[in-house]
């Protein structure tokens, strides 16, 4: 058995539908697509994702079922984004329970690699606009009144770090990782999350970027992302249940 088969799995048509559904719903939950924003027409989306129009139609159907888009007919018709009040808790719980401890650790490893490097580069390259945005998202996280707003402010902070690194590729990776991690991290399960602690971490990272201290920015971010693993692991263990007592 060569490594070829495991490293280069074939793309099943259904997984393409799921991929598109995931990408669009993540963009909606992260606030990258605004409420009421019109999605491009089916042929344009098909071209964008490099799939058949039929695949796009199926994906839009699934997004409609989840209540994330609304389709209107007629001259001013099309598919429009609907931002839900909060993240889809059932989906997130199921996703987290479905992950092995190994997969969870692997996800945090990848996130740590991407985010720490982004912070390191951001300290060397951030524009004044980037730095202001980092502090704005930190403040938004502190004052957020809903779970949805908290998840978005957290995600946007980390995405802004990658943007501040002036890297298109790291930004794309961070957007994808935030789509995976952010909702799960804030699941209201187990011990309540220490919001002030997260805000303090973000503030320190933003300060290091502003001070052009690349070493500190990297170290602080790595520590911050690494602390996600115990949080995610304990939620997963709580949700998995098992033998009661102990």
């Amino acid at each position, binding site marked *: 058995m060569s490594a070829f088969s495991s490293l280069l799995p074939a793309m099943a048509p259904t997984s393409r539908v799921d991929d598109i559904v995931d990408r669009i719903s993540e963009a909606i939950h992260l*606030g990258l697509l605004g409420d009421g924003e019109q999605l491009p027409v089916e042929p344009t989306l098909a071209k964008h994702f490099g799939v058949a129009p039929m695949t796009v139609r199926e994906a839009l159907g699934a997004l409609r079922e989840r209540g994330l888009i609304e389709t209107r007919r007629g001259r001013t018709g099309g598919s429009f984004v609907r931002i839900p009040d909060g993240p889809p808790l059932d989906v997130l719980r199921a996703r987290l329970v479905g992950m092995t401890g190994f997969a969870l650790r692997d996800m945090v490893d990848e996130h740590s690699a991407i985010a720490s490097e982004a912070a390191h580069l951001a300290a060397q390259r951030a524009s004044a606009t980037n730095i202001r945005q980092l502090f704005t998202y930190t403040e938004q996280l502190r004052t957020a009144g809903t779970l949805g707003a908290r998840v978005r402010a957290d995600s946007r902070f980390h995405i802004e770090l990658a943007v501040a690194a002036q890297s298109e590729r790291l930004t794309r990776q961070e957007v994808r990782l935030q789509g995976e991690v952010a909702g799960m991290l804030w699941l209201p399960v187990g011990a309540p999350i220490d919001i002030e602690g997260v805000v303090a971490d973000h503030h320190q990272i933003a300060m290091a970027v502003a001070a052009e201290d690349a070493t500190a920015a990297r170290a602080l971010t790595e520590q911050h992302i690494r602390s996600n693993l115990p949080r995610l692991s304990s939620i997963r263990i709580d949700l998995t249940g098992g033998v009661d007592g102990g």
Partner: protein
Amino acid sequence: MADSQATPNAEDLAGSIGALVNGVCVHLDHLARLVQASLRAAGGRPLREGDLTSVRDEIVSTLPGPQDYIGLGFAAAPEVMLDEPLYLLWWQRRGDQMGRLRLNLDPRHVDVYDYQTMDWFRLARDENRRVAFGPYVDYSGSDEVTITVSLPVIVDGAFVGVVGADLAYAEVERRWIEVLRSSAVDGVLVNSERRVVTTNSTRWVVSQRLPELPAVGSGPFTDVAMVPDGTGWVVALANS
């Protein structure tokens, strides 16, 4: 010494580099005049979208022209538009497709795209000057590496907004690097935030922030010239 006489100096290079932004600003000046005319025609009342038809038509007809344009538009100052604290009349182009940029402009919302905090808007307003911001990853807009050129629109002494053009870095960098390549020595184009825009040498990395804006005698620099386009960008040469 014959070589160094044949090679252009920083000022020559800066002049060639500045031609691009100066050309963009001819379009932007025209757009700004249309915005001013719309406001004057409204006689001081807040504008509705319908009042900006001539501006929209100009955007839509100009945008498909220059190869390097990926966005063009007007961003209003607060109070300029009726019932809309933030208002963007901005169009984007991708290949031969064009569409209006729609962002969340609701200031009560956590995801608001508050362009008033962006340097291309803020600096044009606060310093009343041309701005060239970038290159940056524009994930709210074009989703491409972008340089945004902007200038303030003033009506009767009052700031009413900013007109701007998004340029594809991939296109403009090609032209600027050709200019720098005409130099026999190491050269670097640095933006007003002292970040490297492009270079003909491996001694600097694009997007890297220099410890200070280049000046003759500081660091390796032997010849420095301001790009004559009002943006505060600088061309600096260093002997190897």
